[in-house]
Each structure stands twice: as structure tokens, then as C-alpha cells.
């Protein structure tokens, strides 16, 4: 049964955390994607990455909007005036853009995760969440097609492109568990049917990406078993550096009512 009714108490707090984490992921990833604009290996990809960036930032706006419906917060205030330690984004999206192989591999991992997450969020008992998931899943399908296409071309291009892809995998893969990790309020959200169980999303994501990587002749290193990973860990320095750029103009004139 779906509801529009705003949850309260600890359920509200848990949902705000989860939605914020996802919004922050989309924003940080969109910011990284946009860094390629004007610097991509070919013109068609300047255009493509800019599409991805607009989509991710647009998704972030949607998710911050869901949070706004929950607690009345202002998306721009959240984005431009929180410190790094108040952000709930994953480490994976905060890493610098690296080379083209890293950007495509990181994008693919996040796209795969989002695909599994959104498919289940579309059945969320909290209606605004379900609606957002359905709409966003549409664009994610195209993203997944694009990033998978690139993995194939890099894997079967030159020795150099394959080597770079392997390096990218070595750098990104260890951060996957943190992206998939549970957050403190998850049990309550899952019980209320508002958010899918992280274990379920996590294993579906790992199955999906392992299948793709194996088909490309890439070996996904085994994830340390029994490793307890949480989303709520100290943010990496890269996020602080990113935010110092992202927030610089807004923070220079905090009185400004509109930009």
C-alpha cells in the first residue's frame, strides 16, 4: 500500500538520511562528469558526458525535492552550505575523474547500482519516492547502455585501453562495498516498505557487474568477506576539495537571495 503521508519520528529521520545520501551521490557524480566538458577525448563525448551530468544533477534536484517534501529543507541551502562531514555521498563518486577509463568504469558501477536500486524503489510504499524512481529509471537505462558500450570498446580496443580499464577497476572496486553498505535507519525503512533491503540491492548489483566484467574478460577482485562496511564514515579529502570549488561563489555572498 502506498502513501503520500509524511513519516514521522525515527522513520522520518531514517528516510531523510537515505534520500540525502542518494541525492548527494547524484550531485557529486554529476559534478565529476561535468568536469570533462571541454576536455573529453572526442566531441561526441563532450556532449555525452554533459548529458550524463545534466541527468545526474537533475536527479539530485529530484531527490533533494523528495527530502524537501519530508522536512521543508531548501535544496540549494543543503548543497551550498553543508560542510563535507554533513554530506552523505559515497567515496566512490567523490574520487577525481581520473582518466577516461576510470570515469567510464566508475559511471558503470554507479549506473548498475542505481538500476538495481530504482527497480526496487519503484515499489516503495512512500509514493513520492516511487514516482521519482520510475521517472529516473528511464534515464538510467540510457546511461547503462552508454557506459556498457564504453567498457566493451575499452576492453577490446588496444592493450593500453584494456590495461587502463584494469587499473580503473582496481581503484574503484574496493569502494563498491561502501556504496552498497547499510545505513543506521535501514531496518525501520525496510520494515515500512519504504526502502529496499541493502543486502538485496547489494547482491543484485554485484551479480550484475560481475557478469558484465567477466564477459569482458575482466576479473573483479574478490570483496573481503565478513568485512563490515558502513556508509557513515569520515568523508575523504577529495570531497572537501570538491566542495570548496562547488560552494565557492555561493559562500562568497551568503546574503544573496537568488542566483
Amino acid at each position, binding site marked *: 500500500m502506498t502513501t503520500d503521508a509524511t513519516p514521522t519520528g525515527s522513520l522520518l529521520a531514517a528516510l531523510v538520511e537515505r534520500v540525502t545520501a542518494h541525492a548527494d551521490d547524484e550531485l557529486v557524480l554529476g559534478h565529476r562528469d561535468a568536469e570533462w566538458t571541454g576536455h573529453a577525448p572526442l566531441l*561526441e563525448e563532450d*556532449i555525452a558526458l554533459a*548529458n550524463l551530468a545534466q541527468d545526474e544533477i537533475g536527479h539530485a534536484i529530484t531527490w533533494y525535492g523528495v527530502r524537501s517534501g519530508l522536512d521543508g529543507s531548501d535544496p540549494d541551502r543543503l548543497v551550498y552550505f553543508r560542510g563535507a562531514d554533513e554530506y552523505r555521498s559515497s567515496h566512490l563518486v567523490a574520487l577525481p575523474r581520473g582518466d577516461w577509463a576510470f570515469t567510464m568504469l566508475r559511471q558503470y558501477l554507479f549506473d548498475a547500482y542505481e538500476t538495481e536500486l530504482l527497480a526496487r524503489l519503484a515499489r516503495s510504499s512512500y509514493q513520492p519516492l516511487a514516482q521519482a524512481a520510475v521517472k529516473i529509471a528511464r*534515464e538510467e537505462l*540510457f546511461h547503462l547502455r552508454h557506459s556498457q*558500450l564504453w567498457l566493451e*570498446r575499452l576492453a577490446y580496443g588496444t592493450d593500453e585501453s584494456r590495461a587502463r580499464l584494469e587499473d580503473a577497476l582496481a581503484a574503484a572496486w574496493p569502494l563498491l562495498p561502501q556504496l552498497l553498505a547499510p545505513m543506521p535507519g535501514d531496518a525501520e525503512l525496510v520494515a515500512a516498505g519504504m526502502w529496499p533491503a541493502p543486502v538485496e540491492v547489494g547482491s543484485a548489483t554485484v551479480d550484475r557487474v560481475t557478469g558484465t566484467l567477466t564477459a569482458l574478460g575482466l576479473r573483479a577482485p574478490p570483496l573481503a568477506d565478513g568485512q563490515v562496511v558502513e556508509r557513515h564514515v569520515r568523508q575523504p579529502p577529495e570531497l572537501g576539495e570538491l566542495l570548496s570549488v562547488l560552494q565557492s561563489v555561493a559562500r562568497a555572498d551568503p546574503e544573496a537571495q537568488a542566483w
Partner: protein
Amino acid sequence: MSRWEVFKQDAPGKPHQAVGSVHATDARHALINAAHVFVRRPAAASLWVAHASAIFSRTRQELAAQELSTVDRVDPAATAAPGAPLEPYEVFRKSSNRRSMTFADHVGTVEASSAAHALELALAEPTADTALAWWIVPTAAIAASDPADAPAWFEPARDKLYKQQSQYGSGPTPTVRRADP
């Protein structure tokens, strides 16, 4: 990397129109690039791509200068031995010098033994008199976007209002436009 000509259909029932080209490694890549390059704003229902080498092109001036039957026999797009089997070819025609962002519209399919033969058949149609330029493409050379992909590939552009000029005001004062001399 090769050039792939792109054809966009704005809405179901409208013809595919030549809109430009993309660089890509193969048809799948070309279709995705075409979506990125040509469907940033509404509207699109379908995309076709064809490797640039598969396009047989003739302008009215070129046709006046050289008979189709004397087309150079080493032109692979054009020739076929007499009695060769008939294959389908897609016909695109430009009919106007009016300003436009598209080149030629898809006007139909013909069964022919070669691209030159396909154009001869197209020229025999009564509507051919107004044609300014023709593109003939073997049907087999065209890769089409999957209709099932349209919601993911094309629909999202409709919601991106922030990049549509109609969303922005007309300015602080009405613009006084003097007539050109």
C-alpha cells in the same frame, strides 16, 4: 573512426530526415551518439544511422551533368550486373531551397538492382520533378533505434525545460526593432 549519417523522425507518422552525422565505431555506437548529439531537445520518435560510405548521393545539377546509366562502374554503391537480384533501397529527397535544419526527407522504399537503378526508379515518379537532391541508401545499411528504447532515449528531453528558450522572459524592455534599410 567512421562517419555515420543520421536520420531523425520527429514524431510517429512523420518522415525520417537527414540531420547531420556522428563519428562512431559501429552502428550501435552511432545510434547512441546520435541520441546525444541530436536529441538534446524534443522531439524524436526514432533514429536511423548509416555508414557514410553507404550513401549514394546525386544533386539535380549532377544528374543533369551525367546520365545515371554511365555512372562509373567501380562505384560500389551504384553498380550491379544486369539480372542482379532486387534489394530494397530507402529513398530520401530534398525538394526545397527554403531555410531548414534538415537536408532530405525519407520518401519511400524501392526494390532495385543497384543504388543507381533505385534512383532511376525514383526519378520516374511524377513527384520527382521538384527534387533538388537525392540520397539512396540500401535498407540493409540502415540501423534503426529500437522503438522500445524511445522512453529512455528520447522522452527525457521533453522534461528539460531549463534549456528551452521559451522558458525565459522577454527582457527588461520591449526591444525596439528598426526596419532594415
